[in-house]
């Protein structure tokens, strides 16, 4: 490499031009590789969830879909036991499919994968809903680009990517420097193809879901972050503020949510939309204007798909939060009990839910 400087400028110029051309063309093969990267490498958490669903025998009949909000607030084992007690020993088999950063587009993708499996569809689907996660520019939208977007999706997603915070830069990084942004995924894939085990440790919180331990690990991780819970609540809520400034319940994200509900409805599942607990600071972000857009959306889901709605956003005090929207161990015990008794039990037995409200007009 340490070649002496050449006196002629023609050769180095050609060398650098060829280098530039090769780099300019590199997004094409890189993008192709990203698009064809198998799910277990592209999004190991989702692949593990789909695989767990596939392997669960007998098939689960209650499916919980949502983000880490729902996941962190659920203690799956205790929740399942309480539900069993509430429904009186019926064979209720719970499957918690909550995902880290599981915003509506991701949940739609997951639901499509789950329902594509040749298994009995769930009888009851508990789907997390929250106005902030339905925002066109939702906080986690940019992760969709990394975990699931392929080139053919671009026309559909582009308008929302353009308007979402951080979307454009992530799309540019994903499509122009695929070898860098998707390096962990591509390396994992290459390692498997070449017969080597991956040397990259799995990022925390994305390991294969093991009932009862996975979300505990996420809670532990969140609990060990810097600062006390009150500061984390404030800091976490601040992150959402900019995304909710020009709130629009429209575009790809709300369409994805509706499509998820439609798929579940078509599969014959009873659908309960659950708004998980939110800290005071997080709730304060949901202005009357935001709520005014949320209410008709809920109403439409109710009238078209028969969804009922259970609002737990104000049911858990702030001291049971790890940050603005994730539950502590104590918080998850409280919420699991409430969800089992007030939502799943009644919904399973066909009774009217105690907390379910008709969607506001």
């Amino acid at each position, binding site marked *: *490499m*340490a*070649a*002496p*400087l*050449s*006196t*002629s*400028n*023609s*050769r*180095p*110029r*050609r*060398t*650098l*031009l*060829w*280098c*530039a*051309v*090769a*780099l300019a063309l*590199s997004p094409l093969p*890189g993008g192709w590789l990203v698009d064809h990267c198998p799910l277990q490498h592209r999004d190991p958490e989702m692949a593990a969830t789909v695989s767990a669903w596939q392997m669960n025998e007998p098939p689960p009949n209650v499916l919980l879909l949502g983000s880490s909000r729902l996941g962190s607030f659920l203690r799956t084992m205790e929740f399942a036991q309480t539900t069993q007690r509430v429904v009186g020993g019926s064979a209720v088999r719970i499957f918690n499919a909550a995902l880290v950063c599981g915003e509506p587009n991701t949940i739609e993708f997951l639901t499509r994968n789950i329902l594509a499996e040749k298994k009995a569809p769930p009888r009851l689907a508990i789907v997390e809903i929250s106005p902030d996660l339905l925002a066109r520019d939702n906080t986690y939208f940019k992760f969709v680009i990394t975990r699931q977007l392929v080139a053919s999706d671009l026309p559909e997603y582009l308008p929302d990517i353009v308007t979402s915070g951080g979307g454009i830069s992530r799309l540019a*990084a994903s499509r122009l*420097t695929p*070898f*860098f942004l998707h*390096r*962990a995924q*591509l*390396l994992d894939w290459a390692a498997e193809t070449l017969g*080597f*085990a991956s*040397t*990259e440790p799995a*990022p925390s919180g994305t390991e294969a879901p093991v009932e009862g331990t996975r979300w505990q690990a996420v809670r532990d991780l969140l609990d060990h972050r810097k600062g006390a819970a009150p500061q984390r609540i404030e800091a976490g809520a601040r992150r959402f503020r900019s995304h909710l400034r020009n709130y629009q319940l429209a575009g790809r994200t709300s369409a994805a949510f509706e499509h998820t509900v439609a798929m579940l409805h078509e599969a014959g599942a009873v659908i309960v939309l659950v708004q998980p607990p939110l800290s005071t600071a997080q709730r304060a972000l949901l202005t009357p204007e935001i709520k005014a857009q949320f209410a008709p959306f809920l109403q439409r889901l109710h009238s078209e798909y028969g969804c009922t709605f259970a609002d737990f956003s104000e049911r858990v005090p702030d001291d049971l939060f790890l940050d603005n929207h994730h539950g502590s161990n104590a918080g998850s015990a409280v919420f699991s009990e409430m969800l089992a008794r007030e939502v799943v039990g009644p919904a399973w037995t066909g009774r009217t839910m105690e907390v379910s409200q008709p969607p506001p007009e």
Partner: protein
Amino acid sequence: MLFHSFGFFLFFWIVFGVYWRLREHERRMRWLLAASIIFYGLWSPWFVLLIAFTAGADYLIALQIEAAAQERARRAWLVLSLVVSLSLLAFFKYAHFMLEAGSGLLALFGFGFVPPAFDLVLPLGISFYTFETISYVVDVYRGRVRAERNVFHYALYIMFFPHLIAGPIVRPSQFLWQIRTRKHFDWARLQFGAQLFLRGLLKKAVFADRLALVVDPIFRAPGEFSSATLWLGTVAYAVQVYCDFAGYTDMARGVAQAFGFKLPINFDRPYLAASVGEFWRRWHITLSSWVRDYLYIPLGGSRDVAWKTYRNLIFSMVILGLWHGAGWNFIVFGLYHGVLLSLERAFPLPAWTQRGLPRLARIGVTFTVVCFGLVIFRNPSLAGGAIMLQRMLQPLAGATLPLSVVTITLVIIGLIFAGHVFGRARLWRDLAGRVPAPLVGVAMACLFLLIQLLIPEDGGTFIYFQF
């Protein structure tokens, strides 16, 4: 702004594009100075003022030294410059350590003194630019360079962004003339710079950052690992710290080449050294030669009786150790190397050991003693270093690393040693000249893509930024 970040990529292309669009040489230099101020100011705008003060004071003092007719006046100006530069360095870098050491010393005599708690931010690159300003004033005093009249040129010498934060430590005689010389765009120089940058990026972003994932847990809890793992961790650290700093230097030199500047070589295959003395002639060359020229030789060097030479060696090496940071580990590291250098001088090995197998054995021994030094260097507490050395020398069982991690670590270590042995071979230069240009260009692009692919997810900052 790290060299291997997207932010720097954008910054570089803007600065590079404007630089070569400007026709006038002086405008180019001022543009580079402005870019350097922005580069540093992005980290902390306030500390730009600190550099401006240090550099400004030394600029004026150097002019006074040159203008002064009497030796006493010249010497007084020199002392003033040293006091200003070293006081600032001592305040920002060593104040806390000195107060704590003072408190400990007073406690020994029964005086209770609790040092005030303050949290000083260490200005980035202060150790590097302070040594540069000192070398400038001393060289003017010695009459080796003329005091620079053009304040922009002088400021650019200190602040030129490729070397500002982590060196190499540039002497005025190496750089000021380059600032005065008109630059011409040169594709060959650009290609050379790009290749240097790629080489540095590979060393830093791939090798050093990947080894950090292995090294950090081992040094965090050395008591938990087996002796073999500690040996592996130590060798991995030796390679990591080399790749980290030599990688930075390569990138800095590559960036400088793109603007038509040449920065000095800082590392010359240091792990091929057959003695500790040779090691320091190959490792962080600009620092060790600075210590030699501005400390060891003025102290008397090896001109006097043997014990004075050893004293000078040990003192110089302790200062060199302290340069890395305020901690007892750095002092002991310097002391250790000072003693080793003195021993080498006291008991010189015969010339025949410099060839063939004996030389190979000497390289192995030198590398081992350097590794022992790095154990002291890397452990913030002396007790931690002692535990680690004890466990390395006394075979003990303990935690081990997964086979895949050991394999990757050994591959990286092997590649770096192969680079040491074959990196300068004439074969590569001949080959590079014969391969068609398009193939070389595509190979460079592929290497860049491969580096991107191999950068670990949680790549860190440069080790030498903390110094």
